[in-house]
């Protein structure tokens, strides 16, 4: 019974969805303020999602209708599952087992995979280009991102998120001891969320809306909500690992909002990278940086 409540209301399910919409508003408001605008009202993401959910869903010609309808659900389910294993709101994760870090990171990738498949499923040139770019970008940031999140796990000597969280809380903040890993993890998260400078997959000036061009109504709303949940799960993971752990709600709000502030600042300050530049940045610099971090870690282990 308690497990079901954890799954549906708190800390999973409903709470994560509302939290995700609130954080989307914070993000949009910050970007608007940086651009000297007033910005959206506080209920804007809620109104957007409710509107999309009650609108008609157009199923275009020449698509596999079953796949078209299922993919948004799979995407949202994947990220909601991932959110169950991270310390949302500063409480212990609702579910936990040895090795859940790997599962969480791959569940977060499920949204990207579903987006790519959704784009490839529709016979629209913009969707196809968007899907190609989404998957290309996935293969470029995924390895450095995973390595950046595994470094704290190796230091803590555990693959369990709650134990790494406890370790980060007891020791010096890992952003100070592993600064390169923190930067790569932050940039990887931006790549995962497809926000500037890594928004080539949904570049609206070139390819309309990327892989989701043909989605309307319910499907689009579910993908939007999935993105919001991914935002929450991602920055919670980042704050728990690199910003000294999350052990209570106040710490949760402060630390995740700090990460969100950095995300909003970087996304306002930079322009979009072309897709080949994105791949270049990740494989030329991202991987090298994170390997340097690993070398330093191994060196420290050997010396001390």
């Amino acid at each position, binding site marked *: 019974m308690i497990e079901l409540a954890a799954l549906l209301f708190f800390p999973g399910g409903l709470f994560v969805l509302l939290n995700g919409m609130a954080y989307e508003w914070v993000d*949009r408001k910050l970007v*608007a303020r940086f651009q000297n*605008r*007033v910005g959206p*009202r506080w209920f804007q993401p809620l*109104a957007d999602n409710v509107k999309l959910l009650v609108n*008609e869903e157009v199923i275009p010609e020449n698509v596999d209708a079953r796949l078209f309808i299922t993919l948004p659900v799979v995407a949202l389910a994947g990220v909601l599952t991932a959110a169950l294993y991270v310390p949302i709101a500063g409480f212990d994760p609702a579910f936990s087992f040895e090795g859940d870090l790997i599962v969480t990171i791959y569940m977060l990738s499920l949204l990207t995979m579903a987006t790519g498949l959704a784009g490839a499923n529709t016979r629209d040139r913009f969707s196809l280009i968007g899907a190609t770019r989404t998957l290309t970008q996935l293969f470029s940031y995924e390895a450095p991102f995973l390595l950046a999140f595994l470094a704290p796990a190796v230091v803590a000597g555990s693959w369990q998120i709650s134990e790494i969280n406890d370790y980060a809380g007891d020791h010096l903040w890992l952003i100070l001891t592993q600064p390169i890993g923190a930067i790569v993890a932050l940039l990887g998260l931006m790549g995962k969320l497809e926000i500037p400078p890594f928004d080539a997959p949904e570049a*609206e000036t070139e390819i309309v809306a990327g892989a989701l*061009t*043909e989605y309307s109504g319910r499907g689009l709303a579910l993908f939007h909500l999935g993105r919001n949940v991914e935002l929450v799960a991602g920055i919670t993971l980042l704050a728990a690992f690199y910003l000294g752990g999350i052990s209570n709600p106040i710490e949760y709000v402060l630390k995740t909002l700090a990460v969100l502030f950095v995300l909003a600042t970087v996304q306002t300050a930079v322009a979009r990278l072309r897709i080949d530049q994105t791949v270049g940045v990740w494989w030329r610099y991202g991987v090298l940086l994170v390997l340097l971090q690993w070398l330093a870690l191994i060196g420290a282990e050997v010396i001390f």
Partner: protein
Amino acid sequence: MQRLERNWNTAIERIKTWARTNSPWVVHFNSGSCNGCDIEILAALTPRYDLERFGVELHGSPRHADVLICTGPVTRQARDRLLRIYEQMPEPKFVVAIGSCAISGGVFQGCYNIVGHIDEVIPVDVYVPGCPPRPEAIIDGVVKLLGKLRPSPKPVIEEPAG
């Protein structure tokens, strides 16, 4: 029991209307205008006027949009495209015709390559006159459209007397 069901339905309708009036996503189509109105529409979407505070977002795909903002007279070439874009939009959809040409054909009236004004091709909900209309007028047009969605006791646009 029936009353309960009716109340439930009214509540759902109210939530739907609230969501729709607070999040109009627009798609912009030029069906043959001289670009004057398009520049004004883009000006209305810039940080100076900041339509995001009303929830208005410009989207590239007609599948994402609720409001089709349309400028210019309809040329023979643009007619099929305009129809196709309108049909691609999910229900409920609304059309705002921007500028004199969209209302009557304007200076292009009677040209050999012109079908006519926009509501000869698709139904229009709100007309914004002007050549070109100022961004404030465009924003006012969208607000009038949203006013039409809300069930209001008095009509938003008064008929001229006589």
